[in-house]
């Protein structure tokens, strides 16, 4: 079954008459990795927010189905429990809530929503320690409040840690590579690759072809002004790197 099907999606801001997504269609099957590239302001983050269920946007046309169900009808927490995960471009700080505690509350909330048993503390600890080690996330970082005082790179690693612990079936990565140094990029890419599996789909939003050397996509899409103007395989990313967006975006205006 198709994992995600976006059909002719139109999105405007709720309190402003401005269309941001303008007829976007995309199908993600289990096991596929789709990269989305595109100039600043083309609507990449907006798309990821709409998929995760953020308020403030209005869908004026089109549909989104996730595992055969109407995704747009679900609240953000229902989507999370069903397997949607968004690694934020700008992760949010939650003062006073230790990262470890946040992970536990989130995981158990999802398990509860799915009718599964809550994870016992020792099992949870084992899981987090294992995933944290793979992503070079220190114990100290796990004790610190969620994203508070984290460096840009640490925030991104923490997002991927959350993803690795929550094990979603659709991973949306919004510029996870920006702000990462070369070594961190490697570690994060390894973490993401470890999650690649035949039943999991990914949408990787990035500006840099470099990330796609590590996380090799099955498809690359160019987004411009709220529409996919070109799709191809991984060679499209190289082409973009060489020529810039201009050539692809002109006719989309």
């Amino acid at each position, binding site marked *: 079954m198709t994992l995600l099907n976006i059909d002719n999606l139109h999105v405007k801001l709720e309190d402003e008459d401005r269309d941001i997504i303008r007829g976007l269609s995309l199908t993600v099957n289990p096991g596929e990795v789709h990269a989305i590239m595109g100039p600043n302001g083309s609507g990449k983050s907006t798309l990821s927010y709409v998929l995760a269920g953020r308020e403030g946007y209005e869908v004026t046309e089109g549909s989104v189905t996730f595992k055969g169900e109407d995704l747009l009808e679900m609240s953000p927490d229902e989507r999370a429990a069903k397997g949607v995960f968004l690694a934020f471009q700008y992760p949010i700080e*939650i003062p006073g809530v230790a990262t470890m505690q946040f992970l536990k509350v989130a995981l158990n909330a999802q398990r509860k929503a799915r009718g599964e048993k809550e994870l016992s503390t020792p099992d949870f600890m084992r899981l987090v320690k294992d995933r944290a080690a793979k992503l070079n996330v220190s114990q100290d970082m796990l004790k610190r409040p969620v994203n508070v005082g984290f460096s840009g790179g640490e925030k991104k690693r923490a997002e991927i840690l959350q993803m690795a612990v929550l094990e979603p079936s659709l991973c949306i990565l919004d510029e996870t590579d920006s702000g990462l140094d070369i070594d961190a990029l490697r570690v994060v890419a390894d973490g993401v690759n470890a999650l690649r599996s035949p039943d999991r789909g990914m949408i990787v939003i990035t500006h840099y072809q470099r990330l796609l050397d590590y996380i090799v996509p099955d498809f690359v899409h160019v987004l411009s002004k709220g529409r996919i103007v070109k799709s191809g395989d991984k060679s499209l990313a190289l082409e973009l790197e060489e020529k810039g967006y201009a050539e692809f975006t002109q006719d989309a205006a």
Partner: protein
Amino acid sequence: MADIETIALVKDIDVDKYKYGFTTDIESDYAPKGLNEDIVRFISDKKNEPAWMLEARLEAYRRWLQMDEPTWAKVHYPKIDFQDLYYYAAPKGSAAPKSLDEVDPKLLETYAKLGIPLKEQEILAGVRKQGEKSELDEEGNEYTSGKVAVDAVFDSVSVVTTFKAELAKAGVIFCSISEALREHPELVKKYLFSVVPQGDNYYAALNAAVFSDGSFVYVPPGVRCPMELSTYFRMNAKNTGQFERTLIIADKGSYVSYLEGCTAPTREESQLHAAVVELIAMDDAEIKYSTVQNWYPGDAEGKGGVYNFVTKRGDCRGSRSKISWTQVETGSAITWKYPSCILRGEESRGEFYSIAISNGRQQVDSGTKMIHLGKNTSSRIISKGIAAGRSDNTYRGLVSAHRKATNARNFTQCDSLLIGDKCGAHTVPYIEAKTSTAQFEHEATTSKISDDQMFYCMSRGLSQEEAVALIVNGFVRDVLQQLPMEFMAETQKLIGISLEGSVG
């Protein structure tokens, strides 16, 4: 986009959500309705008190008659008809239970339902956990709780005190104040009213006249109290005021940690609660006093609920003594409460850590007073106010330094968090320094739960209510950590419960 937009219209709190609202059907002895000198005599007589105590009560009553109800707090309520109340209600046959076996099973059941285990054997055998396992702390450790001795007060009387024998071995006296008046009159006489005198304020005077029970603690010199002490107050009888009085003395070089918890049934009528707590810390002694107050807050329209008018004061009488108040206030229709420290002894220290949550139509006016009298005294105030629904939440605090209190130091931090746009948070700090060497620092912030934080949490699978509870728990973390480990997990849950329905 305004922060409040995701937090749509504020849903009013639902009475059903107050899970301690049940009534215990038990026969009680009442004093006749109303208040006069005969009622004062009736109460004193019921308790077999020494004559001086009756005289002190009558004096307090006469002073009370001359006083006016204070109106300066930012709270509004209909005038209380003090003649329309019962001032004494006691479950029949509860006068002087000697052991748990003699306690009415209905009462034991009530406390069990409230999660307060009174059966020592069960606790000792580990059958019943006391408190609950704490949530995971940041290191991922789990703490199982230690032993806690409980004094259970039901309406006007103490029904049982646990672990008395074990405490006695350490020389610690822990009993109801009625019992202390009979068994240790000299100690009570020496310290009672020495911190909060009979005529201190309107409600304190009323309490002095009619107080029915409460706890008494004496920790002898050099003794570290071997377990947490706690009192659990339960208001049950209808139209009955609860006036308990607690007196804790930590003698030289001793230490005690004490916790009180309170709940009341859901009733349409408002209930009056006017308690007094006096703490005395001698040289090098330390008292840690924690409160988890969860009296019935009233319904969505503000009907019913407890009027909580409380005077709590600690006297750091000795040098290097320390008193620390930690309070978690989630209940009551009206809270009027300012746990204070008189820093008399040189180098003494006072602390006040507060979490005050208001929802629905609750009104909270609470804070502290730090009165620096001695040299090199220091104090610290951390207050976290959370207002939701249509509630009003005021922090009112005084920090003062006497002329002789050279090098007095205070640090105050008041943070308010607003949930929705129909509630109010106010900070009213008073500062008076009569010595130029005093160093007082004050910081205050007001914030809202942001859309972004809510969305971030929900995108990780938390429901709206879970997200609010988590963010608020983070906001109050500094204060939460001051609570005895045994009560932390429970308190975190309570915070979640009291904010239910705060977002729509």
